[in-house]
């Protein structure tokens, strides 16, 4: 018995510390607000910033999906763009199998290893380009021969379940579902390891959404892609996710294994978000969170969710909580700090 149980422990420890394919560590990205004119510079007026992403840390293994769940303005799309190198973060690092991801134009070692599928295929595909050329575009800088390139394009089109007859049509002639398949095909041609999917099904109908989600899962099983799927839809998150990071106003407030986060949400915001989504065959009007998110420009001090949080304590409005590890899930909330809670209780 003893050696057996010893063996199983080792297996568990190795699976607990797996090799992550994509590593995102302490990433922050802010955007200057408006233009800073000459007068502003003379008077040394301090520039204003929108702090889109703050201190984001996530890891994704090959063949697995990280879902970034959040509402508009949560910074989920900016995080996705930083991951593929479309935005340069102010601080923090992104790496694929240890190679740092650089901005797209100077990408070098990571070129083609990260791809992004954008939200609205209607505007991310050139309406006048033939599908054949759209899908071949990631190969423009490669040294492949024409034949090899055509072969790759055909393969990608087959993989996403489209007929070869679409190759000579233009993106504008395709239906919404077909367009999104073409965007996925375009992401596949450079043999990526990581694919960031930004709301890939939010602009298409439900009946087509199921087809596209099934396709994404199949492609991942065959090729071991690591997905970062950005969505606001808890149903899509449940279907796709191995792990989940919930974002609110630029911060990851809760992250961990998908089942844990979705079934026993720990952060009050995650709880409210999941409760607010209407459920099919449940006629009760979802729980209501009060208020709306504050502006990203003048973020309140402390926890960004404190102004709307039903459990807010004094400390929440003063200092921003650091993540606590609770049952394997990382939660940035003082409710999981025993000292804070015990100190707050007598006051209330």
């Amino acid at each position, binding site marked *: 018995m003893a050696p057996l149980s010893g063996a199983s422990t080792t297996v568990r420890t190795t699976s607990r510390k797996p090799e992550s394919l994509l590593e995102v560590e302490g990433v922050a990205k802010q955007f200057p607000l408006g233009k800073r004119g000459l007068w502003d510079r003379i008077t040394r007026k301090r520039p204003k910033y929108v702090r889109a992403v703050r201190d984001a840390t996530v890891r994704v293994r090959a063949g697995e999906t990280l879902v970034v769940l959040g509402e508009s303005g949560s910074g989920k799309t900016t995080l996705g763009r930083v991951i593929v190198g479309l935005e340069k973060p102010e601080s923090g690092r992104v790496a694929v199998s240890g190679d740092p991801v650089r901005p797209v134009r100077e990408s070098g070692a990571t070129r083609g290893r990260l791809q992004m599928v954008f939200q609205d295929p209607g505007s991310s595909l050139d309406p006048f380009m033939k599908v054949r050329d759209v899908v071949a575009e990631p190969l423009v800088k490669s040294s492949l021969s024409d034949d090899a390139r055509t072969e790759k394009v055909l393969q990608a089109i087959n993989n996403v379940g489209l007929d070869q007859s679409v190759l000579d049509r233009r993106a504008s002639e395709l239906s919404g579902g077909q367009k999104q398949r073409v965007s996925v095909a375009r992401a596949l041609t450079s043999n990526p390891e990581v694919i960031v999917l930004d709301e890939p099904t939010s602009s298409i109908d*439900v009946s*087509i*959404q199921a087809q596209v989600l099934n396709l994404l899962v199949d492609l991942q099983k065959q090729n071991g892609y690591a997905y970062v799927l950005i969505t606001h839809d808890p149903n899509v998150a449940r*279907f796709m996710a191995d792990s989940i990071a919930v974002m609110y106003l630029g911060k990851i407030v809760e992250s961990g294994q998908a089942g844990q986060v979705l079934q026993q949400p720990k952060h009050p915001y995650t709880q409210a978000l999941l409760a607010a989504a209407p459920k*099919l065959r449940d*006629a009760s*009007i*979802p729980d209501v*969170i009060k208020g709306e998110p504050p502006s990203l420009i003048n973020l309140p001090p402390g926890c960004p969710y404190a102004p709307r949080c039903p459990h807010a304590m004094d400390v929440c409005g003063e200092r921003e909580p650091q993540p606590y590890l609770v049952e394997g899930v990382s939660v940035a909330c003082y409710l999981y700090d025993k000292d804070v809670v015990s100190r707050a209780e007598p006051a209330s």
Partner: protein
Amino acid sequence: MEVLRVEGLTVDYKAGGGQVHALRNVSLTIQEREIVGVVGESGSGKSTLALAVSRLLRSPPAIQRSGRIVFRGSDIAQLLPSKIDNIRGTGIFMVFQDPFLSLNPLMKVKDQIIEAISVRLKHDSRRFDREEAERGAISHLKTVRIGDAEDVAERYPHQLSGGQIQRVMLAMALAERPQLLIADEPTTALDVTTQSQILTTLKDIVEETKMGVLFVTHDLAVAGVICNQMAVLYGGMVQEAGPTSKILFEPKHPYTMGLIDSVPSKTKEEGPLTAIRGSFNPAGLEKICPFTPRCPLARDECRKGVPAQNMVDGTVVRCINYGENYES
């Protein structure tokens, strides 16, 4: 009391040389205090229906071929444009999907609600008092649960969030007290947390004013939460209609079943989602059941004609599996 009755409404769009059926023989009724959901995908005709009922369809290209739109006992489809203005606002009020297109960008929120109040007063031949209207505007903003109502009232639409604008629209509806509210995807552009707030507010307003609501949405779950009755549109036709719980728990039409199954309700480890095959393409569907090319139960009889409506267990179903009757 019946607020709206649509009977056999057929609307075509002129496109190129030919014509496309946008709505075919659509019938539905809305009672006082009732929220009727019109659910469908893009191209199903749901927005055309909302525009037709509010008489906002642009013609050409739209042509109303046949049918009646009975509001307050008279067919508004036949009304002259000059008479329509008497109905709009106080009779039929619309809330659209894109909140940023629905308010006047040059007017303060307060003044837009006051205008709505004055329209109502004029309609009732009552005297307009500016101060009283101002107080009314603030109180309506409070009813739709806008925080800092006094402050928001002084702002312009571009200074508001999408959720706040939809609330202002509901406040205007409160001011106009219409008998019928037409809401075309009113929460689609909003976050889920804001959406749940707006849906609650809408339900409260319906209780208070007794108005009927035509609620157009692509989201079955939203319709399930807010609607008493539902009509599922596909290819411009009502494929299935009845009480919401019947439609969601005992769907009869293969399209409704497919739509419900398409909503992701499991994890990928539990197997692939049930998807409806193909996509909607109106070509060649004029004389058959429009769902035939995508239907898992399709057979030769589906191509014999357009199925007629069958009454099955309290719901209306257009499918030959419930009786081989054809309309044309």
